[in-house]
């Protein structure tokens, strides 16, 4: 048994998960991350680069990677794909004009080999805005029903109020745990 094998086993023992949070710019990725972690969300700047948070939730150690969504940063997304257990795709439900862009980016992500085993959670964010589309409408727009390659789930949420963030992450953890830790 090599050292790498031992390390990998240790990672499994610790019930560690790596979540990658992506989406178009202004979708609310950083706000979701900070709100989930109980931090102040009023001073968040557009992400120039990425944020990593490690937090404990339900006995799991979560490594959450939040990578900036600006067009100029999207080509760097692939640098973060390796050994991702869960992909969190964040959508600005009030940004109707870029839904098509949003769908295209998501579909190209799902064709990525290195994300093949990852569970997909779609957050239809900004449900607190009066003009927001419902999670059903977002699901249609993203063509989620046609996804056969990944386990997926869509949850309507608001990063500002914190609504449904927990239930979304809980679903994600359950799904990943069922896949990754069943051997225990």
């Amino acid at each position: 048994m090599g050292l790498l094998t031992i390390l990998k086993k240790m990672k499994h023992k610790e019930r560690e998960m790596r979540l990658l949070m992506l989406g178009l710019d202004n979708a609310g990725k950083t706000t979701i991350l900070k709100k989930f972690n109980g931090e102040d969300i009023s001073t968040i700047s557009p992400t120039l680069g990425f944020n990593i948070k490690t937090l404990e939730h339900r006995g799991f150690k979560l490594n959450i990677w939040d990578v900036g969504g600006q067009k100029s940063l999207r080509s760097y997304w692939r640098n973060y794909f390796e050994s991702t257990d869960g992909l969190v795709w964040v959508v600005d439900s009030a940004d109707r004009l870029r839904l098509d862009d949003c769908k295209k980016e998501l579909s190209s992500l799902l064709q990525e080999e290195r994300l093949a085993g990852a569970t997909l959670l779609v957050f239809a964010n900004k449900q607190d805005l009066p003009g927001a589309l419902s999670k059903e409408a977002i699901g249609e727009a993203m063509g989620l029903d046609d996804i056969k390659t990944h386990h997926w789930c869509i949850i309507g949420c608001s990063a500002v109020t914190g609504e449904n963030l927990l239930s979304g992450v809980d679903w994600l953890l359950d799904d990943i745990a069922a896949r990754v830790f069943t051997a225990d």
Partner: protein
Amino acid sequence: MDIQVDICEGNRDDNSSNVVKIPERLLQREQARLDDAERRKEAKESHSVANENSEFFTKAFNRDRAAIEELISICSGADRALATQTLDEATAKTQQLQKFLNDSMMFLAQYELRQAQASLQKLQTSLAEKRDEALPKKKFAFRSRTKATEQVCDTVPATQSGETVIDGHTPAESSIGKVEETVYSKQCGFSNMDDMVLTKTAGEINKNDVLLSHLTNCKVRLFGSPSTLHIKNVSGCEILCGPVSSSVFVDHCSNSTLALPCQQLRTHNTTSTQVYLHVTSRAIIEDCQGVSFAPFTWSYPTLDEDFVVSGLDRARNNWTQVDDFNWLALGTPSPNWTLISEEDRKTTWEI
């Protein structure tokens, strides 16, 4: 043997009178525990993944892969229901195989892992191709919505353009125009106007998300506090807006003047535009040229109240701190934006 000794010592500490009896009972328990552990170990070893050697993995993997390939090859488009069933079964099996691979990842060599991943990928591709071929109406991947769903839900016009194809080509330009019209009719804001003076009152805005699009040579006044503001495809406009409680998103804006307080400003594809800004976190630009910044100076009678509604901090204005996503070099300033010198700033505004 060690165990027995331990137990005896433990017992002595307990100072119990049944010195002989208890170790016996404990020994029995210990034996039962060992048996149980042995049984569990055996059970685990009989489990597929517990056989942690790559030879076993390769065999099992290839066997399953062959089974799935068989499923895919027998599937034909003649009977839709049957084809759907077969393909779904194949999909489920592929997922199981993926899980098997994930479980085995710990003890596989890098090469074997890559090989397995490659063949899984191939399986998925051929599965998708078969799905296209056998069930042509319900292709895999991301298509535009079907007719039925269009009737149910007309709130997602952005993807109604019907031309979107499997590999994500853009829909025809003309259909976008039509689509956007439907978007605008449902939204608070203005669109498709030339040479107009456009005003929204605090009552109309009232924490709505506001959209301004396709405006040319217009003067726009937004009194009140929107929750977000989107500005898209405008040129030659003067847009003055009350405090925006979260972000302002600007895209394709040219030769315009904007004045707005907000939490974040995100500017894209914008040229020759002046921004009179109050921003409490940061402003960013991307793919912009000739954007210049000055502090927010517009005022109207209820501005103070709207600031309170928006929750923005009036004392914190980071209008000089602009991040250019196309200029990541430290030390040298971005050539894409400048600050407007004091004598060139606009101080009077027509309401």
